């Protein structure tokens, strides 16, 4: 129960693997896909089988997605329409770590509901709504979004997701014009000094008004103004080597050297304990910077120019990983057999995220004679992820109307293939897809590329009729991942979508 669960990349093995081999009592019997594109995951042909073996399959999404149509189930499939971002409001986080408040544009269409309402209704049905929503106001089954963010703010001390209150984010949204578009800093106005969207870490309580951290680990600024050090996350010493910073600190730091994470005891040793208010002292006693719910320890550390999470060295050796420093290992499906001996993959593992995970036993087989082409996959600018939303948008769908494979002119000529011909791409695990050939020098001889945004065709079969009426995207096509193969990252179990083998023949 306490081992890490199946990652999304491996759920199919949770269904298909022999019960004896998995580190839990039983196989997976139900799946809930919430905003997920199954065609973004490899081994599509096996996924179809896994979907058919489930007892229950639920899809929560604005679109049916390939989860609704790629299998031949006749019962036990539930499509719960979720509304889009335009039909609700709240905060969104971007990959630059900043948060932005957004307004609702239209009311939810048809019978769709916002995600948080669907989640509340599930909780109510399962009987834990009182517990889950005890700090959140609920109006007509819709939890109040501001309260949800406040709850996040209350708990996420470790990454500084605490200062971005709904009120501060709304202030930013209403005062865009006061932010400098180059520095992202507000110049005057109600958000004066804040960086747009309060990029986390935005330390302490909202009342502390930390401006956010636009650039991580920038020691040329005080922590109170968005500067930072490296986090002392992995102790202070390893194998007799000091892990804390030496001769480096953020501007204005009163400790001019490395230091560990802040704790109540550390404040006392430094003589900074009395900088806490009486209430903060009560909350901070025996706690550290991430467990003190008053935020007092963070406030006082920053007041003295220090980062609450310590000041350590940047770490490039990850001793908890199988390869502490990355080294080259040949892919499981490789066309370079000559490199396998020098750069072998890992040994098979009995239990990795509860599942046996194969490495060496696959690499031992030579597939390169029958499948000589390297198959890699990736994205197109017009489509997003599994592509269900974007292939349903006429302006975008018109720009990419066919699933295709990019193939070098030399490889095409060797196989008697002309530009625009339909071809079979055969994968080494036995599945195949029927797609259009795009003859191009974008790819080297010996390499082919497919985009992964398509779905709706399965090994040559058009499954458009399986969509609920009116819900089928304009453009359908074979999913690249139907022929992409086994292979999982040794740490995260991320699926191998970039390196496989195939053979191509005219269709």
């Amino acid at each position: 129960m306490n081992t890490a669960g199946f990652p999304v990349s491996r759920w199919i093995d949770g269904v298909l693997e022999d019960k004896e081999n998995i580190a839990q009592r039983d196989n997976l019997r139900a799946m809930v896909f919430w905003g997920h594109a199954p065609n973004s995951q490899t081994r599509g042909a096996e996924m179809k089988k896994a979907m058919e073996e489930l007892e229950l399959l639920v899809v929560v999404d604005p679109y049916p997605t390939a989860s609704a149509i790629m299998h031949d189930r006749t019962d036990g499939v539930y499509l719960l329409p979720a509304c889009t971002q335009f039909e609700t409001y709240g905060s969104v986080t971007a990959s630059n770590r900043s948060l932005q408040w957004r307004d609702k544009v239209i009311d939810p269409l048809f019978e769709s509901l916002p995600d948080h309402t669907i989640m509340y209704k599930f909780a109510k049905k399962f009987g834990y709504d009182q517990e889950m929503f005890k700090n959140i106001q609920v109006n007509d089954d819709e939890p109040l979004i501001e309260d949800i963010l406040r709850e996040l703010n209350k708990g996420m001390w470790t990454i500084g997701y605490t200062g971005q209150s709904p009120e501060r984010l709304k202030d930013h949204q209403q005062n865009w014009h006061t932010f400098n578009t180059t520095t992202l800093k507000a110049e005057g106005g109600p958000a004066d000094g804040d960086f747009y969207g309060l990029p986390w870490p935005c330390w302490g309580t909202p009342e502390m008004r930390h401006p956010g951290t636009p650039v991580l680990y920038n020691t040329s600024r005080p922590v109170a103004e968005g500067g930072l050090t490296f986090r002392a996350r992995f102790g202070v010493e390893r194998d007799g080597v000091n892990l804390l910073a030496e001769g480096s600190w953020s501007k204005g730091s009163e400790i001019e050297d490395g230091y560990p994470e802040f704790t109540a005891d550390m404040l006392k040793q430094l003589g900074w304990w009395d900088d806490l208010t009486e209430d903060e002292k009560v909350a901070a006693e025996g706690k550290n910077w991430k467990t003190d719910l008053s935020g007092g320890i963070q406030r006082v550390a920053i007041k003295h120019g220090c980062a609450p999470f310590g000041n350590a060295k940047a770490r490039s050796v990850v001793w908890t990983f199988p390869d502490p420093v990355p080294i080259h290992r040949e892919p499981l499906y490789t066309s370079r057999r000559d490199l396998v001996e020098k750069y072998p993959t890992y040994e098979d593992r009995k239990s990795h995220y509860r599942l046996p995970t194969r490495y060496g036993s696959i690499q031992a087989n030579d597939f390169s004679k029958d499948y000589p082409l390297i198959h890699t996959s990736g994205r197109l600018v017009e489509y997003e992820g599994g592509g269900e939303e974007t292939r349903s948008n006429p302006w975008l769908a018109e720009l990419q109307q066919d699933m295709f494979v990019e193939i070098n002119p030399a490889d095409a000529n060797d196989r008697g293939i002309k530009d625009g011909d339909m071809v079979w791409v055969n994968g080494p695990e036995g599945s195949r897809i029927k797609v259009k050939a795009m003859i191009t020098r974008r790819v080297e001889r010996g390499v082919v590329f497919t985009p992964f945004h398509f779905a709706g065709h399965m090994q040559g079969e058009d499954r458009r009729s399986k969509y609920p009426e009116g819900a089928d995207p304009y453009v359908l096509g074979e999913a690249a991942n139907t022929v992409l193969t086994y292979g999982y990252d040794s740490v995260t179990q991320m699926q191998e979508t970039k390196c496989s083998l195939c053979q191509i023949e005219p269709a």
Partner: protein
Amino acid sequence: MARMKFLCDAERCIECNSCVTACKNENEVPWGVNRRRVVTLQDGEPGEKSISVACMHCTDAPCAAVCPVDCFYTTEEGVVLHDKDQCIGCGYCFYACPFGAPQYPQQEAFGVRGKMDKCTFCSGGPEEDNSLAEHEKYGSNRLAEGKLPLCAEMCSTKALLAGDGDIVADIYRQRTLRRGGRPQTWGWDKAYGSDV
């Protein structure tokens, strides 16, 4: 009065098709009709370049010169527009245009093409500004609202410039100075004459 011009800077265009999508959405252009498109040369090879192309709103527009029903006119701002009520869909303008701008809703036998459609520089047509009739026939009229064409406004790298030709030329001149390269104002000789 400003003389409106387009300029696409091939050093900046990244073939993202934002201009195409913006145009389609703003003007509600039907599937199969492409007022603007991105053309890529030497795709996948060294020296690959992309350029966004639409009606360039030529001085002395060749389309107008060949039109048998004289449906074209040039506005005070130098925008070349046409009257769809007059257009007979003959397709002569398509053969005359050096940029492949004119589009037709139908491609059937015996030359039945439907009324020609093309980029209006987001400035509608002969109907009353921003009327329903104008929108249905020609799309949006942003110029009448004091706004520039949406394709250039949405361009993610500011490769595509639209607006007063003098200002567009100034921006481009500053860029080429900074780059230190030879200016390549693609299409300008053909559209606006060799002395610009």
